[in-house]
């Protein structure tokens, strides 16, 4: 296995996942791009050994064509995903003038409702006791 590709895979995975953990949608999109590249390199590096291109008739040992075919499909799918994420980022910007992914409102409300419902329990008992 190629040492430099392996290290490169590590860098791409690290950079990609760091970007994905950001709030900025643009950065998330960049992360999808970087990580996608990392996956492709990983599959080629781990799935085949360096050799001649798998075209029948070429001299020398031919490399394993299947990882290449898989990665080709993965590249295209990655491109499709990235385009969609970018469109989403674009749309998000046109709505909010903001590139960031906000936290979910309902989830945040739960903590607040927690305290208000405790109050309502007491009230209910007061109602129960009074005729």
């Amino acid at each position, binding site marked *: 296995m190629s040492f430099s590709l392996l290290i490169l895979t590590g860098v791409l995975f690290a950079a990609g996942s760091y970007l994905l953990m950001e709030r900025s949608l643009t950065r998330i999109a960049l992360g999808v791009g970087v990580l996608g590249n990392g996956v492709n390199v990983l599959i080629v590096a781990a799935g085949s050994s360096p050799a001649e291109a798998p*075209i029948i008739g070429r001299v020398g040992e031919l490399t394993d064509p299947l990882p290449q075919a898989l990665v080709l499909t993965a590249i295209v799918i990655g491109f499709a995903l990235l*385009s969609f994420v970018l469109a989403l980022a674009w749309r998000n910007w046109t709505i909010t003038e903001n590139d960031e992914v906000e936290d979910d409102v309902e989830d945040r409300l739960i903590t607040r409702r927690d305290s208000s419902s405790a109050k309502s329990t007491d009230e209910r008992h007061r109602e129960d006791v009074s005729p």
Partner: protein
Amino acid sequence: MTSPEHPKDVSNSGGARNPSDIVRSAIFDELVDRWLSKVAVLVAIYVTFRGHNAPGGGFAGGLIVGGVFVLQYLTGREPHVRFRTILHPTRLLGFGLLLALGTTVTPLFVGATPLESHIWKLDVPLIGEVKIVSSMFFDLGVFFVVVAVVLMILLSLGTRQSTVFGDEDIA
């Protein structure tokens, strides 16, 4: 967006009022529209069909044509104008998919499994024996899909005017 009745009025770059713009636009017209695009389409077709035996294929071919549209776009044109008269991008997309699917399904009618390929050997005068593999049609479908996708993305995300492509098909 340009109405079909005025296909010449293709510039979107705020109208070529400036004389230097006119010159530049003429140069690009000449270069990009006349020559580059035609050459590129030829290259693309070549790449698509040789893919079976050498690096290339429908995907790469489609992307090369897409690259021409990108160039057209970057030089201030909306590339669909020429194409629209032939096929609306969404239709092109559907057509490409149908072509690929057709190749997939056709073997079913002769009792084979989907995607089972067939090789025809033709004797063409002058060229000699030509081998046509049914999977080439599949690759051609891929080619059209890719072209359509590039067009659609350019014409939507890339639009600079208030009319957005595709709006007309909302019933």
